[in-house]
């Protein structure tokens, strides 16, 4: 696997897993507006994951669904930050949202300058959508930045951003949920 495909899988896995984690707020967020916001952000992230998986799948001779759902939990390349189940901790959820969107901005900016026109084009398209995620994260950062619980969560979560080789038990549990339907019907084509 080339470095480039490896990098694309990292992003795709981050977006897929974070999309699932964000969707856990659907129906139970502290405000109705945030129910809508986190559901919408989750939907966007999973759409981005699919687009990146499709690019990687062409290089690897497989399909987006197989990459997203047929690998074992220890084969995922996502950051440990996105794996954690943070419901019902809103302060930690916003801390992760802020840390992730800040790091993702840098990564997307670099991909927009890629020599590969497909990667650069997709990154630019995704960046248009991510601009709204960043605004949402910024709005909550400004509101919570002086709260002790929020500051503690930032300090605890920040070191997890670059951990990709070691997964938490939370990822295996999420993987069970995420792939349950697919695994239950042998040979089904979705």
């Amino acid at each position, binding site marked *: 696997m080339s470095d480039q495909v490896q990098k694309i899988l990292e992003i795709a896995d981050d977006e897929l897993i974070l999309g699932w984690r964000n969707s856990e707020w659907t129906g139970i967020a502290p405000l109705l*507006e945030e129910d*809508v*916001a986190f*559901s*919408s*952000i989750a*939907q*966007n*992230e*999973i*759409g*981005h994951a*699919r*687009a990146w998986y*499709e690019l990687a799948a062409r290089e690897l001779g497989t399909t987006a669904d197989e990459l997203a759902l047929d690998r074992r939990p220890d084969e995922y390349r996502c950051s440990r930050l996105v794996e954690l189940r943070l419901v019902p901790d809103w302060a930690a959820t916003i801390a992760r949202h802020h840390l992730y969107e800040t790091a993702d901005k840098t990564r997307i900016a670099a991909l927009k300058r890629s020599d590969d*026109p*497909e990667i650069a*084009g*997709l990154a*630019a*398209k*995704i*960046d*248009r*959508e991510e*601009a*709204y995620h960043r*605004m*949402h994260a*910024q*709005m909550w950062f400004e509101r919570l930045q002086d709260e002790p619980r929020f500051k503690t969560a930032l300090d605890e979560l920040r070191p997890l951003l670059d951990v990709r080789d070691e997964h938490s038990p939370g990822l295996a549990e999420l993987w069970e949920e995420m792939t349950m339907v697919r695994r239950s019907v042998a040979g089904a084509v979705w």
Partner: protein
Amino acid sequence: MGGDDDGAPVGRGGSVVTAEQVWDALAEIPDPEIPVISLVDLGVIRSVDVSREQVRVEFTPTFLGCPALEVMRDAMAARISALGADPQIDVISDDSWSTDRITPEGREKLRASGFAPPLPRCAWERFSGRPDEPRALLGGGASAASAPREVGGPTLVQLQSNAFRCPYCGSQDTTLENIFGPTPCRSVRYCRNCRQPFEQFKTI
């Protein structure tokens, strides 16, 4: 209309249909989530290429997570098949779609049905971020030529500004209720003048 009928239209190079006929047919397909506008109004069709019995359409999606994309693609294929041609719909996931591709007719149809159309990207790209500026900028005022900012759509300060017009009464006395809305492409705003919440198409 069968492609091999004597009466079937024959385009240049012996094609069963012309590109104009394909564009007309695609202009009749409503957006699955906002049916007041068509796929042509929405600007998601980048090109139509007709060669003999095959019609190739380049389809540039709106939001990548939008569940309407498959519905749009299948509806286009069905319309082209009904014209007697063989459809090939290529999904182009590059940066070619932006809300600036929505046609003037599409924007007016959106506004008339209560969706505030997206502000043009150029409005934001010339805007330095002072909350009082968009009114002047969009109204053709004097303070528009400020320092250029990074190209990339609006910022939070701008979303919280008074650049957005209520689609019902036209007032600019509107506030941001939620950056996100019922679908990825929309925000929710509230008009303080006519006391009506409304959906604002995001600029992307």
